[in-house]
């Protein structure tokens, strides 16, 4: 009985999250924001369980996964279970992180173990150690300015184009490429 209720609860959560994403993909901005908010809580819980030995990495990986899911949101197939999509990406990013650490640990002694760590609730958005704001500052102007105006200040494409003197399509391309470049920086590629 309890099992059935648990499954029902999970199904209801999945259904809710999926409908938020689908509405977001269709252009509903508040739904997309709500989707990302619920997603980050879900990811925090998922990754915290799997990174029990590395609590410091959890929030960094939550952010990296969020950015990846945002950049790859066009790869979600409306016919597939959303949790399968989310967990496949989270697992991919988790394995990538563990590989990076393994490579780094071969070169340096791991002395950064911390044991007395009080974990905040999954829903509470913690601070990541990596500062995306600083990474953003490293992007070239043609990508940084469109992102700052559109995604931080909330201006429209037209307003951003007027402010920066770029064409509207250059603004859109700048946001798109800039977000990908940001993901690559987070990954340590660039």
């Amino acid at each position, binding site marked *: 009985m309890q099992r059935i209720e648990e499954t029902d609860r999970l199904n209801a959560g999945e259904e809710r999250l999926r409908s938020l994403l689908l509405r977001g993909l269709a252009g509903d901005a508040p739904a997309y924001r709500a989707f990302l908010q619920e997603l980050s809580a879900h990811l925090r819980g998922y990754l915290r369980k799997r990174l029990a030995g590395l609590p410091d990495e959890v929030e960094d990986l939550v952010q990296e996964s969020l950015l990846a899911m*945002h950049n790859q949101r066009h790869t979600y197939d409306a016919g597939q279970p959303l949790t399968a999509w989310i967990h496949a990406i989270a697992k991919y990013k988790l394995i990538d992180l563990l590989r990076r650490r393994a490579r780094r640990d071969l070169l340096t002694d791991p002395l950064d173990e911390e044991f007395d760590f009080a974990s905040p609730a999954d829903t509470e958005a913690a601070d990541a150690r990596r500062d995306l704001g600083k990474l953003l500052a490293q992007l070239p102007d043609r990508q940084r300015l469109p992102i700052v105006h559109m995604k931080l200040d909330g201006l429209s*494409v037209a307003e951003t184009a007027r402010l920066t003197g770029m064409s509207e399509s250059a603004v859109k391309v700048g946001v798109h490429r800039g977000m990908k470049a940001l993901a690559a920086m987070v990954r340590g590629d660039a």
Partner: protein
Amino acid sequence: MRTDELVNMLATGAGAVPPNQAARRYATALASGVLGAALLMAALLGPRPDLAAAVLLPMFWVKLGFVACLATAGLLAALRLSRPGLRLTWVKGALAAPVLAIWLLAAVVLARTDAAQRAELFFGSTWNSCPLLVALLSAPAFAAVVWAMQGFAPTRLRLAGAAAGLVAGAVGALVYSLHCPELAAPFVGFWYLLGMLIPTAVGALFGPRLLRW
């Protein structure tokens, strides 16, 4: 940056996502792969001189059908592997079916042939160049399909690379079959398949490097 700030940033001005991006991107890749292979074939090999007569033979179409089925199955696999969390499931059967069918046909053909002539059916007269030429003609499609896949998010990179290589190999084989003088099922079932498996192996080898995101 706090995670809720990141959520804010991602959500702001996100806009709608155009549907059917996979179909468009893969269609572009396939078209340029076929065009590239056709240009290479025209420049280096030329079509077989008796092509007009060959298209009347059933085996010509069996050969083409075998390659086309593998191309389609490979494409379905590539499309599924481009998306996180989608498994291959029935596509595995679709990949195996054309191979089993041509092998069955080859077995029947060999069984009905005199032992002395079997070697000729298997080796034809071009066995030593066929796989390499198929692999060569698949190069443009390989680049194009890998490009298409880079626009998505494969999570099993070796498998995805292999699928991209198989699609490219099948495109190469499809175009090569317009040049190739061989029609025997044992030849097609082995040397063509070997030719298509070369880019498949290359894809599996370099997938993790080419497709990482």
